[in-house]
């Protein structure tokens, strides 16, 4: 199991488009991937779940992956956050 904290750095926070990007990326991996924010845990392969987190600018999210490709999954998702979902 791998865990990594990431910060939402795009101004608008995680709205529909970034959420879709996250889900599409997460769905490529076999691992079970969960996001945790303020004690609330959701499945990263569920778009409504991610939007429900209500992750605004500067929110900290813990990515947790478990499975055969856990390292790749966490790396790929963290990259999305680092690149601000290619937004402002």
């Amino acid at each position, binding site marked *: 199991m791998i865990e990594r904290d990431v910060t939402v750095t795009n101004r608008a926070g995680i709205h529909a488009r970034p959420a879709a990007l996250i889900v599409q990326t997460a769905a490529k991996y076999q691992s079970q991937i969960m996001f945790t924010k303020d004690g609330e845990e959701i499945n990263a392969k569920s778009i*409504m779940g991610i939007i429900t987190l209500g992750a605004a600018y500067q929110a900290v999210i813990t990515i947790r992956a478990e499975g055969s490709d856990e390292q790749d999954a966490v790396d790929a998702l963290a990259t999305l956050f680092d690149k601000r979902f290619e937004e402002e």
Partner: protein
Amino acid sequence: MIKSFTVLDLLDLDLKEHDALDLHCIGGRPGLTRDIRVPDINRPGLALNGFFDNFGEDRIQVFGRGETAYLQELEEAGRTEVFAEYFQHQMPCVLFTHGLDPTPAFFTQAEQSHTPVLKTDLPSSELSSRLMRALSNVFAAVETIHGVLVEVFGIGVLILGDSGVGKSETALELVERGHRLVADDAVEIRCIAGNILLGQGANRALGHHMEIRGLGIINITHLFGVGAIRENKQIQLVVCLEYWDSNKEYDRIGAEDRTREILGVKVPILEIPVKPGRNIPIIIETAARNERLKKMGYYSAREFNQSVLKWLESENARSRYVQNSHEEHHD
């Protein structure tokens, strides 16, 4: 668990009809950010008499007719020095029922110590039972589960399964067939009164939306009307959808009850294998009907087995009778 619950959150609780607290703040506003940590109330009679041993200072202080009349008497007699000591305690707030107002000196002390003063038109007994109910919901154990909650024939059915197995599609078909959606994807479950699991959408602000692959995000309220949604519902049955595994044994009789534990409460669970050509919504509808029958004391599978046993017995008796009469005939 909730992070913190302040007096402001209490005022913001959106409770309706027989749950409404009808609270408003009349003073001590800077203190509205005080935390309520204990789901309980305190009647401050002893404290107003200067007895502060075991004083429930972490509780909401409820002033009814008696306490308010006593405040008046204290003020008329000029014995207000106890107020200063009273307000040294960091109480979440003081609350006046019956639409009563605090006495002037008491109110001034509350303002000075930044203790919120709340007021309601409800009588004390009604207010305390509603407040206890509201607080026990707030302080209830909470868990967020990835699944879909629907109400089918009055039974709250929580549909679980891996992503992509078709939970949302199944729920959509159920809504189309006249059932109600409670929450999609992130279901917030609370354990109430120790044995009731109440489910609702994890984020109320987002309302009743669903994500259907190929369609995107859809608004169920707008598409199907208010009759197709529900705010919250008790979870009475868990249906776990899984990909058909030919090596796995599925329940073929259904005479024994399997359960799953959520927040320490056991809920009946059904494991339903999914494969093309299986109409899952109809299976869930039938499961809900069956669950209702069970609640009424009728277990389809058990009753069926009883009749089989009875039949076998009578068949057995008959064949023995036939055999016996044969033997008699031969004698």
